[in-house]
């Protein structure tokens, strides 16, 4: 009962924190101080769970991209974790990752091949080459999840993505 009350209180507290500009918090992930990055990472993890996945991708795409390429393993894992949760909870997650906008993919599958990519899915594919086995494994699981979505495999097998996978395989 007490734990439940505490959890509810924490949730309320976090919801009240969300209006705080997240740019400032995400910018802390680029700090030189490893301790600041660690704390920012933990807080970001909590706060991104409250944000709709769409706003993470649309408003904070640059931070998400930077997070996937961050020198610290914890930050890269955090970014992939946010995408993973998005893939679980948001029906437009695949569109957002591949195209950078929601609800288009299902309507325009035939035209998708010629559209500009969001870049996030490409960065996730690059994470397969991560020096950390944990991060690479997270990326692989995320890609599998994405491919289980309708048209997910079509998105993965677009020429740009196939060429990237082949270059990773054969370099």
């Amino acid at each position, binding site marked *: 009962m007490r734990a439940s009350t505490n959890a509810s209180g924490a949730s309320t507290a976090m919801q009240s924190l969300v209006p705080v500009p997240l740019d400032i918090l995400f910018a802390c992930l680029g700090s030189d101080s490893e301790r600041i990055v660690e704390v920012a990472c933990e807080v970001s993890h909590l706060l991104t769970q409250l944000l709709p996945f769409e706003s993470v991708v649309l408003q904070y795409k640059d931070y998400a991209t930077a997070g996937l390429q961050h020198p610290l393993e914890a930050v890269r894992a955090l970014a992939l974790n946010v995408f993973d949760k998005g893939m679980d909870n948001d029906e437009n997650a695949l569109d957002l990752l591949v195209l950078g906008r929601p609800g288009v993919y299902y309507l325009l599958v035939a035209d998708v091949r010629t559209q500009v990519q969001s870049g996030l899915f490409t960065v996730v594919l690059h994470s397969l080459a991560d*020096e950390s086995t944990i991060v690479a494994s997270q990326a*692989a699981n995320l890609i599998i999840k994405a491919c289980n979505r309708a048209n997910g495999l079509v998105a993965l*097998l677009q020429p740009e993505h196939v060429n990237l996978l082949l270059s990773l395989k054969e370099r």
Partner: protein
Amino acid sequence: MTCRSSIVQFRVISLCVRLAQQSAVAATQIENTHGLLLTAADFDLSDVLSFLNAVELASQLTSAPGGFKLLKQERITPILIGVLAFISSGQLPGRADDAELVMAAPFVGPALVGFFGKARCIDFLFFFFCFFLLIFFI
């Protein structure tokens, strides 16, 4: 932030094998994208760990719809049969890495037998048996 190329190589193949295992449609789509799944070039006898990784992924691929057919198409099974035959007969092909293969035989041999066991490819085992007999009598 990136790691050794052979590790990445097998991560990509492993991802594609996992996807191919999910459904016949997925397997066909990936198969049609040549080079993403295992190819004969991935079986590098000069690097024993890479070779063992490739054999393990080949074993996993046999459980995918049409996986064994793909291994045949890519001319992978003849390579594996050849290596197993040479390990069994003690006569190794005249290659620069023969010495490495002799040392690796205790690891590579069981892995290959395990592969053929998983693949349940009776015709290939029969071929191997005949090949072994031929070498034995010669």
